[in-house]
Structure formats: structure tokens, C-alpha cells
């Protein structure tokens, strides 16, 4: 049985702690919601294949600058430019690719789409509830929302 909370927590630890050296504490699974509000920055990807769904990761602008700085080897980020957005997209790519690899270990083959970035006030609405996982780190809170659905076969 696939536990989405465990998958997100494990991949989050791998990417944020294992690669970027952050101290990560994953908060308990939050009540699922079918709408998401973000006033900071987020990266969203679709998951397609034997299961389908969405992944959205949001955080504050300050947190993104810190995150991208770590990805760039400590280079101080004053302003988020095109290269920073490319790095943040790549962060989303790493995270969801890690989820895809975890799903493969459960015998579920999926692929992912190109990451999209949002900035400012955004509300996502969906028919299905998202699994909501918040990770606290020294660069701020990182919120991950994911929904995965079985693909109906005819």
C-alpha cells in the first residue's frame, strides 16, 4: 500500500538534507484540502503514467532565495533572475523525479512533465484532496501538496 506522506518525507529528506545539507523536520500529516493558497513562490509538476496527479511545492520568496543559493554553492541571491527560476524548476524536477523513483519501487511506472513556476497570490482548486506535508528547515517552511490517483482502465 502506497503511503504518500512517507514517500514525500523520504524524498524531501534525500533532496533537502542529503543533497542541500538542510536540517529537515517533517511535520505530521495535515488534513487534506482540495484547494491550495500560496502567497509566495511555488513549483508545480504533473505526474503521468500508471498513476496520475499533481505535485505543488510552495515557500516564501526568502526561502527560495536561500534554497537557490545553496543549489548554486552558496552564491548570495539578491534578486530572483532567470537562472534562479531555472534552478527552482530544477529543484521541483529533482523532488518529483525522486517521487517517481519511489513509485517505481512499488511497481508503479510514472513520468513527469515540465515544471511550472508561480509567484504571488495563487489559489489552486481540485476535485480531489491533496496530501499536505510541511517540512521545517532553517531556510523556512516548505509545503508539499500532492495528489495521486489510480488511472482508470477500460
Amino acid at each position, binding site marked *: 500500500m502506497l503511503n504518500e506522506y512517507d514517500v514525500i518525507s523520504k524524498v524531501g529528506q534525500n*533532496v533537502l538534507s542529503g543533497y542541500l545539507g538542510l536540517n529537515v523536520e517533517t511535520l505530521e500529516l495535515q488534513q487534506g484540502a482540495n484547494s491550495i493558497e500560496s502567497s509566495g513562490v511555488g513549483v508545480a509538476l504533473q505526474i503521468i503514467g500508471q498513476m496520475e496527479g499533481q505535485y505543488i511545492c510552495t515557500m516564501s520568496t526568502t526561502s527560495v532565495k536561500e534554497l537557490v543559493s545553496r543549489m*548554486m554553492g552558496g552564491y548570495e541571491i539578491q534578486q530572483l533572475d532567470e537562472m534562479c527560476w*531555472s*534552478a527552482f524548476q*530544477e529543484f521541483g*524536477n*529533482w523532488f518529483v*523525479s525522486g517521487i517517481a523513483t519511489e513509485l*517505481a519501487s512499488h511497481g508503479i511506472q510514472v513520468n*513527469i512533465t515540465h515544471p511550472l513556476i508561480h509567484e504571488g497570490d495563487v489559489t489552486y482548486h481540485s476535485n480531489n484532496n491533496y496530501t499536505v506535508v510541511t517540512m521545517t528547515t532553517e531556510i523556512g517552511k516548505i509545503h508539499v501538496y500532492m495528489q495521486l490517483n489510480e488511472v482508470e482502465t477500460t
Partner: protein
Amino acid sequence: MAKIMVVDDAAFMRKMIKEILTEGGHEVIGEAADGVEAISVYKSCNPDLVTMDITMPEMDGIAAVKALKQLNSEIKVIMCSAMGQQAMVLDAITAGALDFVVKPFQKDRVLEAVRKLLLV
């Protein structure tokens, strides 16, 4: 020192890989953002080795490796992808890649893969 072409749709990743390779004493002589561009750039710069992403627009990395193998059956390609599941690695190797580096990677992993392929 090798002359290397870097293929990745993410500008950040091309920059990161280029910095790693340059620090390792190699020269990046070509860059491409998708498989179609990779074939064109490969023909014009004829590199010793290629690093290739998989998920890209226009033509993905697996199809690009197959196309490049048609141009040069001895081509040396390292796949650099975040999609590290076994099926994807197998597809890449079957297409003709000689190594597979999973993103995010450490600098040494990339340089070691390049070093090994240059000995082949």
C-alpha cells in the same frame, strides 16, 4: 582533458555541469537545450563526450542518443537525469549511453564518470 557537449533543457543545469567539467580540466565546446538541437550542435562541434538529460522538449534524451549513435556508433554519452528508476536507466543504456548519473549529483560523481569513459 576532453572536449564535451552538455545537453539539458534547464539553463541552471547546463551552467552547473559546465562549471564542474571546467573545474575538472575539461572544455565544454557545445551546449544544447533539447534533442533536436543536440544533433545539430554535435555535427558542428564533434565532441569527445556528451552529457545528456532525458526529459526535454522537442526530442527527449533517449531518442537523441539513438540519433547520435546513427551519426557515430562509437559516441560516448553519459545520461544525467533525475529520473533514476531502473526502467529509465535500462532504456538509456539500451539506447547507447555508457553511464547514468542521477541528479542531484555530487561533482566527483560526474568527473569520475567522464574519467572512466575517456579510458574506454
